[in-house]
């Protein structure tokens, strides 16, 4: 079972499917949408990245060195994720010091649970996609929670200053905004969880179905994946809230200077 064609046949099919891209470019030109260039760039970049990772995975699945190479891949995921997410807090100095450990802690905890519960056999074809999902989702949740936290703190600066001026410690002064940022960061994930299977068939399940897995097993696996995403995400968002305090407040419990540049 699975997709019934070879990589070469796949290339022909890909070219045929690209007719959609041509159609979009023509439409964009005709309607002066101005997205043709960006769309082409995104497709070529994203597609190129996928082909490269596919070639790397083909090599990884065959070599005995996978046990070492996989660490490089995981490390790259964490660093790229941390830096991408850090861009959300433009003025915060060294925001990656918050985002990188938050993504690392959240995603790794989820992956460890998956490994211990045998949902993720310790083989590269399981570890890589699941780690990709765990790190990717932790990164999105990290970005959302950091963005919301900084926004909330900025909007409520006077209120926080009023609390601090009464000797209320920064930890308590930002408690409410921590809660808000964690909740807001999880809204898309929870909404997706609620509509699973109704509006769309999610990635992991779709992949398994295409590969010919029993739909019930595919659904079970999708639930496991979502538990990982939600669990890892909550841990990530909580770590962001915990670590961000050191950046948001000075050692004298004053709001940090960079916030006034936002």
């Amino acid at each position: 079972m699975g997709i019934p064609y070879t990589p070469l046949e796949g290339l022909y099919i890909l070219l045929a499917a690209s007719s959609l891209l041509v159609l979009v470019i023509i439409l964009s030109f005709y309607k002066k949408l101005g997205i043709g260039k960006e769309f082409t760039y995104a497709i070529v970049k994203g597609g190129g990245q996928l082909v490269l990772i596919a070639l790397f995975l083909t090599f990884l699945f065959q070599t005995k060195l996978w046990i070492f190479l996989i660490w490089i891949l995981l490390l790259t995921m964490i660093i790229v994720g941390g830096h991408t997410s850090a861009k959300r807090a433009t003025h915060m100095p060294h925001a990656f010091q918050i985002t990188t450990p938050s993504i690392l802690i959240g995603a790794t905890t989820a992956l460890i649970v998956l490994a211990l519960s045998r949902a993720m056999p310790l083989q590269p074809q399981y570890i890589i996609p699941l780690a990709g999902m765990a790190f990717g989702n932790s990164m999105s949740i990290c970005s959302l929670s950091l963005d919301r936290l900084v926004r909330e703190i900025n909007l409520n600066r006077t209120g926080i200053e009023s609390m601090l001026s009464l000797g209320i410690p920064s930890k308590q002064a930002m408690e409410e905004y921590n809660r808000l940022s964690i909740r807001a960061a999880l809204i898309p994930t929870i909404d997706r969880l609620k509509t699973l299977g109704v509006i769309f068939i999610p990635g992991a399940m779709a992949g398994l179905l295409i590969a010919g897995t029993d739909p019930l097993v595919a659904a079970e696996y999708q639930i496991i994946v979502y538990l990982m995403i939600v669990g890892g995400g909550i841990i990530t968002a909580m770590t962001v809230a915990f670590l961000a305090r050191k950046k948001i407040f000075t050692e004298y419990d004053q709001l940090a200077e960079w916030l006034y540049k936002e």
Partner: protein
Amino acid sequence: MLPTVLRKTVILVPQESVMFPGTVKDNISLALRIHNINNDNKISESLTDTGLSTTFLSKKAQQLSGGEKKRVSLARALALSPTILLLDEPTTGIDPKNLHTVEQRIIRFTKQRNLTALWVTHDVSQAKRVSDRIANLKQGQITTITTPNKFQWEEAY
């Protein structure tokens, strides 16, 4: 000294009075709880000192008028029994009818509680009315420190 301890002794009452969620009582008791001070008398006493009756305690703080919020903000500070109060334009937003009353209230409780108040204002006549000593600040520098009687209007400009 820890900033949280210092800020219990020297309290800044900001120009903008932001109310915390909940009632007036919640607002005044929040800092008291954090500093482990359990005293309901302090809550009502500090509120009445600012000229608001204890019936306000159960009112939603965020629904109060500008002047009332200002008084609750003062009461929040007074409840902690500070020794120095830093008042950043404490009468901004208070209507002219109540201005005099609020000024008198502040003067009264600072005297009763033996408090030092550093009152920032742009209004020279108010500075003369409420202070024992006036310091004139120009571009971040103190140019004169004198008594209200000796303070010259021209110095302020």
